[in-house]
């Protein structure tokens, strides 16, 4: 039996699978694909991080110990979800309209962006989350060791600590990788959410599978299962009312306040409408999660040896029955519950820590000047990553120090009670405009203190942190301050006691202080924004134009848009309404149109505010005022952008002008080209026709004359043919239909060939070359290149006007490539003609019979095809043409080859 090894393997495969899912989802989201990423189903499943390993394993343990009480943990969130119209809807709307990044951000933002409040919330969140993360690590290690204990073949048991360490490390890695891809917390973590949704399915399937196995496989059906329940130690319903009510309320409060729940519920929310689905689907999910808990607990108590840890029944039952694969599935389910909680909690808390603690400290330490935005982004991302590592590390250390004992088991509810302290400030902020920062600070401070003193510190056990005497007689002998019997409330359940006192004092102080103190202006603005979020946000608030004064609107519009334009707008609107003159009825349609027009000039928020001032129907909302302030701050940026735009327009206009000129030029060129062709064709034809008529019609020509004229006809015919060849060649080259015939050859051979074809060296025409430079190998279309060389050489031969024409050909390798210069000793080409010599039919000076002026145009086209260049080199001794070949076509000779 290699179960443990199989488990480790399956586990690693599962983790790899989760990485792949997260990666794939991130990629799909970044490419704009994957609308399924934004489905309400995924949203609902992501909420299931509420069900951590504590509920996956612990619910059965709780049921085994105290019956149905575990249900309260699920009933509270169920009530919150089906009551989404009250609270969640508002939270999500506020979160989206205010670009909220965490619950600390929400509370601080509501109370005038108070960072002190944010720090307090963050601190409490860290204190509440750290043990919870430790609890997840514990459950993974505990389930692992349970597995190992059942595997007799496992030679050496891995220590708990090492398992916890690797799990913590992996989780930190995953979270940093997929949780800090982008800085903007309003950009969703698609990868993380998708992985969590997958884990949600896995843990539900695992628990259902174990449940079905227990009911039908072990107990023998529904009837026998019920009999077993009735016969079990938890057969009777003797629930304490205080705990039932208290825990339901506590879990409901925690569901709203837990940082990780806030993260998936509000921050990761894609669409408010998803709440409509989650409103019934999530309660359904919770119901399924708890459906088999009692049967598993009862059967476990019945079958497993006495003293077995009921927290591990989900795992030990299949193991005991030899269902290894079911046990592995169960383990994976618990693993999913633990990991998804840690990942999201780390993201949520690290966002708080970096945004409200690290960043302010960093900004303060750098003198409060956020120099460049890129700089800040970098620091913020780094802070986020370090915070994630820090949070997970804290959880790990907590697990190490607490020794992973049973003390941790109670920490789930302790943690719930801690974050529940946010509730008065949260709900008060959403529903009561009178709530203010001082009140929130005081309430939260009192609540947190009571929680720490009455629940958190005692949770470590008597004499751990608080000495036993404090439990018995209160601090300094003040009996009414005993942590579990505050103000003489003796004999209460400690948890209910702490929750009651902390929440009650928290709320009372919050309300009283809020009533007695005055908020700052920003708080009042934000308060109105939050409480009246449905009036202020949403799409394009409509205008009711009953009170609007069209004339006032016209006057205002004229001031902004200019008289003529405003009057045109108004009169056309009036015409559409069937009215004469300039003043239309201020219908909502018209007001909206006007607002759009105005916003083009003064910005959307200002336009809205200005119209609303005149229309009077709606008061200027706080949002509008804030937005106006924002816009004012952005004026500098806008104007610089406008400047840039103007420049761009000018650039475009210039480009258009140039394009137009080019087109006109092209048209002129086309006419000139046709005219040129006509001329070039007709000229040799004229000679041919004239001399053939002479030969035909003239009697008595000497044979010498006949021969001469026939030769002229012949030459002109050849000239005509060559012209047609050139034209076709040029046409092919220009239209890119040329097929290059790539060969390798030595430059010297190529030049030899070109010189020969161009008539060779004679006494009347010297060619100077340097053989050593030409020992280069070229890999290109050698025939085409030779054509260029021939053309240049024969041009020099034809046009060099020196007394003793000499053409110098040099070749050298430069960074640009291979450079070959053809320089003669004539008078060169006049400067004004240098720019046109490569154009078709441009001829330098005028020709004797011969060139049609296409040669250099063809050369230019050829060189372009060979990815090289031909240019006229001014300032040389005579006419000089430079041929440049790209360096990749040239290879340096092997020294050995001669």
């Amino acid at each position, binding site marked *: 039996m290699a179960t443990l090894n199989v488990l480790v393997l399956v586990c690693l495969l599962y983790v790899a699978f989760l990485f792949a899912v997260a990666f794939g989802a991130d990629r799909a989201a970044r490419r704009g694909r994957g609308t399924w990423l934004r489905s309400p189903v995924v949203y609902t499943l992501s909420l299931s991080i509420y069900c951590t390993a504590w509920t996956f394993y612990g619910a059965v343990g709780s049921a085994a110990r105290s019956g149905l009480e575990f249900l309260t943990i699920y009933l509270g969130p169920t009530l919150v979800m089906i009551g989404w119209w009250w609270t969640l809807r508002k939270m999500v709307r506020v979160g989206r309209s205010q670009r909220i990044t965490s619950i600390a951000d929400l509370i601080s933002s509501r109370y005038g962006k108070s960072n002190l409040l944010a720090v307090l919330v963050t601190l409490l969140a860290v204190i509440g989350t750290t043990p919870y993360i430790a609890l997840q690590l514990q459950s993974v290690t505990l389930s692992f060791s349970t597995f190992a204990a059942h595997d007799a073949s496992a030679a050496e048991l891995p220590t708990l600590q090492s398992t916890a360490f690797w799990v913590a490390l992996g989780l930190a890695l995953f979270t940093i990788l997929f949780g800090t891809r982008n800085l903007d917390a309003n950009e969703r973590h698609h990868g993380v959410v998708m992985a969590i949704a997958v884990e949600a399915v896995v843990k539900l399937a695992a628990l259902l599978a174990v449940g079905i196995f227990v009911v039908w496989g072990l107990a023998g059906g529904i009837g026998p299962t019920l009999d077993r329940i009735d016969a079990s130690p938890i057969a009777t319903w003797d629930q304490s009312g205080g705990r039932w009510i208290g825990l339901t309320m506590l879990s409901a409060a925690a569901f709203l306040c837990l940082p990780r729940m806030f993260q998936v519920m509000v921050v990761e929310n894609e669409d408010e409408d998803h709440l409509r689905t989650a409103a019934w689907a999530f309660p359904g999910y919770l119901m399924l999660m708890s459906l088999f808990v009692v049967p598993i607990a009862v059967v476990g108590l019945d079958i497993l040896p006495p003293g077995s840890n009921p927290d591990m029944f989900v795992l030990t039952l299949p193991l005991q029955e030899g269902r290894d694969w079911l046990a592995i599935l169960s383990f994976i389910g618990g693993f999913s519950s633990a990991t998804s909680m840690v990942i999201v909690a780390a993201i949520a808390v690290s966002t708080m820590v970096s945004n409200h603690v690290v960043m302010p400290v960093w900004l303060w330490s750098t003198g409060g000047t956020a120099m460049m935005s890129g700089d800040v982004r970098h620091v913020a991302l780094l802070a986020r990553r370090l915070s994630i590592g820090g949070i997970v590390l804290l959880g790990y250390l907590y697990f190490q120090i607490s020794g992973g004992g049973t003390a941790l088991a109670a920490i789930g509810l302790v943690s719930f009670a801690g974050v529940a302290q946010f509730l008065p400030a949260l709900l008060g902020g959403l529903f009561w405009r009178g709530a203010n920062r001082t009140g929130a600070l005081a309430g939260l401070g009192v609540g947190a203190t009571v929680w720490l003193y009455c629940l958190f510190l005692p949770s470590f056990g008597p004499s751990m942190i608080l000495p036993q005497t404090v439990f018995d007689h209160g601090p300094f002998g003040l009996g009414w301050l005993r942590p579990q019997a505050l103000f003489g409330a003796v004999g209460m359940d400690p948890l209910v006691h702490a929750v009651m006192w902390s929440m009650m004092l928290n709320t009372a102080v919050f309300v009283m202080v809020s009533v007695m103190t005055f908020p700052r202006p920003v708080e009042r603005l934000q308060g109105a924004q939050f409480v009246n979020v449905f009036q202020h946000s949403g799409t394009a608030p409509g205008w009711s134009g009953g009170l609007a004064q069209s004339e006032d609107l016209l006057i205002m519009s004229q001031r902004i848009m200019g008289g003529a334009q405003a009057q045109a707008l108004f009169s056309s609107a009036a015409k559409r309404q069937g009215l004469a003159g300039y003043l239309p009825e201020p219908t909502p349609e018209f007001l909206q149109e006007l607002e759009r027009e105005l916003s083009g000039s003064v910005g959307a928020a200002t336009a809205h505010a200005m119209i609303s001032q005149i229309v009077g129907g709606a008061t200027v909302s706080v949002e509008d005022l804030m937005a106006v302030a924002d816009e004012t701050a952005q004026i500098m940026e806008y104007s610089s952008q406008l400047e840039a735009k103007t420049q761009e327009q000018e650039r475009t206009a210039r480009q258009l002008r140039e394009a137009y000129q080019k087109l006109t030029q092209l048209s002129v060129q086309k006419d000139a080209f046709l005219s040129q062709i006509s001329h070039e064709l007709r*000229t040799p034809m004229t000679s041919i026709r*004239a001399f053939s008529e*002479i030969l035909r019609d003239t009697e008595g020509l000497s044979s010498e004359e006949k021969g001469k004229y026939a030769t002229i006809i012949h030459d002109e015919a050849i000239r005509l043919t060559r012209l047609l060849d050139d034209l076709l060649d040029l046409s092919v080259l220009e239209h890119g239909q040329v097929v290059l015939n790539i060969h390798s050859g030595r430059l010297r051979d190529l030049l030899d060939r070109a010189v020969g074809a161009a008539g060779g060296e004679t006494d009347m025409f010297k060619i100077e070359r340097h053989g050593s430079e030409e020992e280069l190998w070229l890999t290109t279309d050698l025939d085409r290149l030779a054509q260029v060389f021939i053309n240049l050489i024969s041009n020099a031969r034809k046009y060099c006007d020196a007394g003793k024409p000499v053409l110098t050909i040099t070749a050298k390798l430069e960074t640009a490539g291979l450079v070959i210069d053809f320089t003669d000793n004539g008078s060169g080409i006049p400067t004004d003609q240098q720019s046109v010599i490569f154009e078709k039919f441009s001829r330098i000076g*005028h020709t004797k019979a011969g060139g049609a002026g296409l040669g250099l145009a063809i050369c230019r086209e050829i060189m372009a095809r060979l990815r090289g260049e031909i240019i006229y080199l001014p300032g040389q001794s005579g006419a000089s043409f430079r041929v440049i070949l790209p360096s990749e076509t040239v290879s340096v000779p092997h020294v050995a080859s001669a």
Partner: protein
Amino acid sequence: MDRKVLLIEDEPNIIEAISFILSRDGWEVKTHSNGHDAMDAVRARRPDLVILDVMLPGKSGFDILQEIRADADLGATPVLMLTARGQIKDRELAEKSGVSRYMTKPFANADVLEAVRSMVGS
């Protein structure tokens, strides 16, 4: 025979052809092969007839024609224009500039002779 014709043309083979045809017909043919000093040649030769190519190095045939027409002494000299550019607007330009006769290359030798005879005979 005293009929003098001045041929202003840059294409050597065409010069040779026209010279041959006209001299066989009894004309005294003088030639000139560039544009910029063509006017001097006309003044110096004082021909009875000028045969003028359009595309000449240095100066276009149209310009030379206009200068001839503008000249008090030479203004009435008949000018036969030869062009290898068959475009209508060239013909229009030539007629506006006061050409006596306009022919497109390639031409029939007989047509040239007929044109030259009729222009000087009239």
